[in-house]
Structure formats: C-alpha cells, structure tokens
C-alpha cells in the first residue's frame, strides 16, 4: 500500500498542527521540531505545500521502518 497523495487533507492537518501526535520515529520528531519554528515565521501556502512535500518524501523513504510505520498509522489510520 502506498501513502495517500499529497492532496489528502491529513497531510495538511498534521503539517499546520490542526492535529498533533506523539511520534516515535526520530527523524519525524526532528522534522516537526524544525518546521514548527519555520511555520511560526512563515506560514504561507507555499511553505505549507513545501513541507507537505518534504514530509511525503521522508515517510515514503522510511515507510519500511517499524517506528515510521507506527507513525504513518497514527496519521492515516493504516500502515502502508
């Protein structure tokens, strides 16, 4: 199973912080640590789309790892 397309609303919700999770995958924790401060400075649509794209790449490349699978399931309800 592949990840939902970047147009899926859940990508946006997690990037802008409409929903928050306690993530297990260290890379994801650092990713969100970084984008939270960057979106606080610039929450433009372009930036949101940029970070959705980066998150999609990060999870796609790591979807085989146990902790990443667990976090994908938190966001999308099912592991790829």
């Amino acid at each position, binding site marked *: 199973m592949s990840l939902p397309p970047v147009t899926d609303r859940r990508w946006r919700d997690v990037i802008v912080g409409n929903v928050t999770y306690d993530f297990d995958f260290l890379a994801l924790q650092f990713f969100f640590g*970084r984008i939270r401060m960057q979106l606080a400075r610039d929450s433009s649509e372009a930036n949101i789309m940029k970070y959705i794209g980066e998150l999609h790449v990060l999870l796609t490349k790591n979807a085989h790892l146990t902790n990443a699978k667990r976090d994908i399931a938190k966001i999308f309800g099912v592991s790829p």
Partner: protein
Amino acid sequence: MIGHLMSVDDATGAIASGRPLLLAGDEQVLRTLPSGNWIGGTIPYFMADEGGLFTQSRLFVTELPGDVTDTAIGVYDESSLQRVYDEIPDTGFGILILPAFSAIHSAFALNAPNYAGFATKPLVGWVSGVAVEDVGRVAPLVFDGRTNTAHAHHGLMIRATLAPHKAAEIGIVNIFWPGAGDTLTFPENGFSVSDVLVNGVRRNFAEYIRETGYDIQLPLVANYGGAMINVCFRGIDDDTHTVHLYGPVFHGVEYRHSRPIVNYVDEFTAQVPRQTQGTLTLSCNCVLNYLYSELEGKRTGAFVGPCTFGEIAYQLLNQTLVYLSIVDVADGG
C-alpha cells in the same frame, strides 16, 4: 556488532582485513596507522567494555557489519556538506565525523535541518575533539584512511550500502528533561549568546545565569516534536557578558534548564532500550556526560564507543548518546 578498544597492532590488523572501519583515538596514534578503508577522528575519551576511560595509546575500532555490502568515503567542505543527506545511499546510511570548533562544525550545527533531504536517510556520527586540557591548543582532526590525510576544516563521511532486506535505524538516549523553571527563547541563532527572553522579558543571559545560580553542567533542553534536544554550556565570559555554548540555540525554540540528574548511570540504565542487543552497530556518547557524570570506570552496558564533542543523529546533538542499529525489513515493507 559493535566496536572495541584495540592496541595499534590490533587496529593495524583490522585495517589489513579490508573491512570498512570507523576509528577514534588520539592524533598521534591515528598518525601511525596504515592506509586503508577507514575514517577516523581524534578523541581520547571512551566508554569501553571495561568501563569509561581516557587513553591516548589505544583506539576504538568499529567494523561495519557484513550487512554492509559497499562503502564510499567522501570529504566535505562547508559547501558540499549541504548535499550530505542526498549522498547517502537510498538503502543504507551515512557516518559523518566533523572536527570540533571548526567552521564546518558550526555550519552543520546551524544549517543541517535546512539541507536538502534532511532526515530522509539515516545519518549518524560525531564531532572529534581533544583532551579537555588541550582545548584551544590542539586542533581536533578527522582522518581519511585512504590517504592517511588529517583534516582540521573538513568533514568525512562513510556512505554505506546495506544488503537487501536490511535497514538502519537511529536511536538516542537523553536523560535530560526540561525542568519546571523559566521558559527561555533567543532572539538569534548561535553558539554565543548575549540576550535571552526569560518568559518573554529580554535579559542579559550571562547575568541571568549568575543571578539564578544555574548549574551550567546541566544543559538547556528543548522539545523537538517529542525528542528532547540539549544545548550545553561551554562557559561564561564575564567581561563581555556572553554565554558560550557547545551547540547553537535557535530562534523560535523554547528552552528550559534541565532538571537535576542524581546518578547518570542509574538514569541512563533506566532509559536504555532493551531490544537493541544483537543489531547494535555503533554508538557514541558525549564527553560532557563522561566528565560531569564521572563515568570513568563505570559501564553503560552494550553502548560503548567514543565520548565526543558532539553527536550526530540526523542533526547535531549535545550531551546525548546516539546509536545505530541494523534491522531486518520484512518482504513488502
């Protein structure tokens, strides 16, 4: 699979095997080694099988496991370092060593989260150092074993490709946790700080630390999406009222002073994951944990390796144990 402290003769034998190696040791010892498929960095502090120790006559040698099918070594300057994540194999990992107090160390600390592909592939490593009494007198170095070349201003990375159905996972153990005190934010990114916002009120940071009696052996701690990230104090310059740090603070991040630590080994042991045995490939800890928690002669279980001037788990960390494990990946992911 994890490394061990070795004599120069034993390390020379390991190099002769041709397997890719990661070495840590004193500069004079590293300079005696033959060329080969290795990278190294200077550091004389270690957590070893026999416990924490300082040695300038032995080396910590980590052989990359048989699951690694190919390696390449890259030398990086501040410009090429921006490609560090993209150059890691898609099915592998990177091990990066940077020389402490160099411009490339600062560049990575400040900018890595903005490099292309940040955190998309596993990157671990450490920052080389020297005996603490030699800081400022002796330059930390990294060594390219292919040519026995020492670098004070460049970084080195082993790019490792893994066998099919294997993957690299990075973990950290950080016993520090934000205390209940003031919320600190900083107007600018940097390793040296004059001003701080204490619960939103601008103060001189050095004066604030003196007034509050901060224990500067305890780091500032920030919550990065659930991961606790430390920033350690290097010293306070009372003449310039400037606080110097071993890692940068970032504008927009909320920090708190760490809660006190009663016994490092006890708290470390309580946090160590129990299921890394057998797949643990390498680890490194912070020299400040070694020094402040008086780890000499004490053991931290399977987590042995150099005690360094900075640790890398995707990005630069301080006062944190970093480890890399090789795990099986089931068919179909």
